[in-house]
């Protein structure tokens, strides 16, 4: 099997005009990660600019209430408020190394857009972010942040006017302008080598978390979990544990209003293999093979597909994928606010909700290690609207 694949998933389902671009990218990426100077620079910025390493925090009141020891990997404490920046620093350094002067990105909730705009400002690159017109409406704060950082935000009006359409538009632009433009993909999706690249630049999460956990507990955790939209924080969180067969790995997708309602974002639960955005993976589709809209209160999990390595990890049985509804996630979010004084991103609250369920069947001396991928400031409007019973903006 070619390195572009994870089992039957992955590949390069893009137009002929991007094939040489992908090859150049792959060569440059493979060289860069073997170049000590490059990796040193990447780690320099992670430490000095992003603020790594992030703490591994034993959530004491959650632990008291729920039983097993619950550890939070605090990716929410990164600069820009989520794990997205880890990958952006890596990809933009690579773009610079390749001599590109412009970067483009797609964004749904705006977190990856903000991270890319941030990196572009730092490394003096021209930045354009594609965002669905629906998302621009509901994530206005992040649009302002991107513009403040000097990025141009392009409103995408095609299809469903959301993340998947913004991604289509970014791919179209890239096919046109690849000569001087680097496409920064934020999730563990897209054609090879993107899923591999995103994992490489996010695996720092599990490398740190594993070491920190060992230092604190002198052993490995029983369970490691993270939320899964496209799957960037989760692949980063799983990376260094994949070979530790005794550690149970769990990915948490969004069940939206409930999988049975059809309004959800659980590509693993109900999708079937298909091709979108340059990859073959599980995909929500209708009876004609057209891509179905995902649905979740969390804009970051609102994606009809999932990264190809996750599809493979599901098929191979190494990772178990489960889903959590909007209501369950919001209850967990509230719990974390009140018990620990941490307002999590709604995405991360999905992982937490499942952890609290799972805790009930675990022993007190066991431990859960959870990726708290982002903070909830960006979600303030959605959270307020939800709890005041006005439904939500999504």
């Amino acid at each position, binding site marked *: 099997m070619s390195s572009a694949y994870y089992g039957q998933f992955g590949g*390069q389902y893009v*137009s*002929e005009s991007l094939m040489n*671009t992908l090859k150049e990218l792959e060569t440059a990426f493979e060289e860069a990660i073997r170049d000590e100077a490059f990796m040193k620079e990447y780690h320099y910025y992670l430490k000095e600019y992003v603020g790594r390493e992030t703490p591994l925090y034993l959530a004491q009141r959650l632990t008291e209430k729920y039983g097993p020891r619950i550890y939070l990997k605090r990716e929410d404490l990164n600069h820009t408020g989520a794990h997205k920046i880890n990958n952006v620093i890596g990809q933009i350094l690579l773009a610079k190394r390749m001599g590109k002067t412009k970067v483009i990105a797609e964004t749904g909730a705006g977190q990856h857009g903000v991270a890319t705009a941030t990196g572009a400002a730092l490394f003096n690159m021209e930045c354009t972010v594609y965002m669905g017109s629906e998302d621009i409406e509901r994530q206005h704060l992040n649009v302002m942040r991107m513009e403040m950082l000097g990025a141009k935000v392009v409103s995408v009006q095609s*299809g469903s006017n959301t993340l998947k359409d913004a991604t289509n538009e970014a791919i179209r632009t890239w*096919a046109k*302008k690849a000569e001087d433009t680097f496409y920064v993909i934020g999730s563990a999706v897209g054609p090879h080598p993107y899923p591999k690249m995103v994992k490489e630049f996010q695996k720092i999460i599990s490398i740190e978390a594993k070491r920190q956990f060992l230092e604190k507990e002198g052993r490995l955790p029983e369970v490691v979990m993270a939320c899964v939209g496209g799957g960037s924080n989760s692949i980063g969180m799983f990376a260094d544990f994949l070979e530790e067969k005794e550690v149970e790995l769990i990915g948490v997708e969004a069940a939206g209003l409930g999988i049975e309602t059809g309004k959800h974002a659980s590509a693993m639960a109900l999708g079937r293999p298909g091709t979108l955005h340059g990859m073959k993976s599980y995909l929500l589709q209708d009876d*004609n*093979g*057209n891509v179905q809209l995902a649905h979740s209160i969390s804009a970051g999990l609102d994606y009809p597909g999932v990264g190809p390595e996750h599809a493979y990890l599901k098929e191979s049985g190494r990772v178990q994928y489960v889903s959590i509804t909007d209501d369950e996630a919001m209850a967990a979010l509230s719990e974390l606010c009140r018990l620990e004084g941490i307002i999590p991103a709604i995405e991360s609250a999905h992982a937490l909700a499942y952890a609290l369920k799972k805790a009930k069947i675990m022993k007190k001396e066991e431990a859960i290690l959870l990726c708290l991928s982002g903070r909830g400031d960006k979600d303030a409007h959605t959270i307020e609207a939800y709890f005041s019973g006005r439904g939500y903006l999504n």
Partner: protein
Amino acid sequence: MKNRIEEKLEHIREKGEKAFITYMTCGLPDMEGCGQLIKAQEEAGTDILELGIPFSDPVADGPVIQAASYKSIELGTNLKSSLNLVETVRKEGCEIPIVFMMYFNTILYFGIENFVKACIKAGVDGVIVPDLPFEEQKQLQDELSRNEQSPILIQLVSPVSRDRIPMLLENARGFVYCVSSMGVTGQAAEFHRDVLDYLKQVKEVSKIPVMMGFGIRTYEDVLPMKAVIDGCIVGSHFINLLEEHEYDVNAAKEYCSSFRKGLNM
């Protein structure tokens, strides 16, 4: 029976002419109207017809074809109804070579084996899959090669294909689809800067006719390349024209016959 595309192109070559190929989105203005447009184009002298099977996420297409796809999906067009349409016009005696332009997921969902069988039954002569580059074609090619009645998988070449060209063309059949500009379908005729050199490079390697597409509006657009290429493809502009004239059969006929005449003056 010989493949209609190959037969037609051989005939054109014998006459020393250039081929004129159009693209339209299947199911517009509705299935019946679409069938009439196919037959009208055959009468007007269009040599090969590309029929776009609408998909929810057409990443290789510009705004015109995106909008047409969306509209057609809303009207209920799918692969099955498109196959039925081809079968119907074939029964009515229409012999124009028909190529399906579609995205890979549509085929994957339908099932590759089922798809090939259904194309043979309906009378589809070729398939263009813009998001299925050479490296990903094996599964589909294997299935196609099981029956000599199968449609031909048309190969696309882009201005940045460079060293890939010999590999792409080695076993290519039907015609080579040369994307003349970078990016997506339907941009204005600002052809890639070295387009002529690139077309010459393709022509040198190719054993089969070379067609140029993307961004062509009038036959004058292709005159500078006419000596090199064997024909051209008009897509987005043709759809715009159909929209403007509310899918009037006579307007389509007039455009096609005058383009083909101009091209072969």
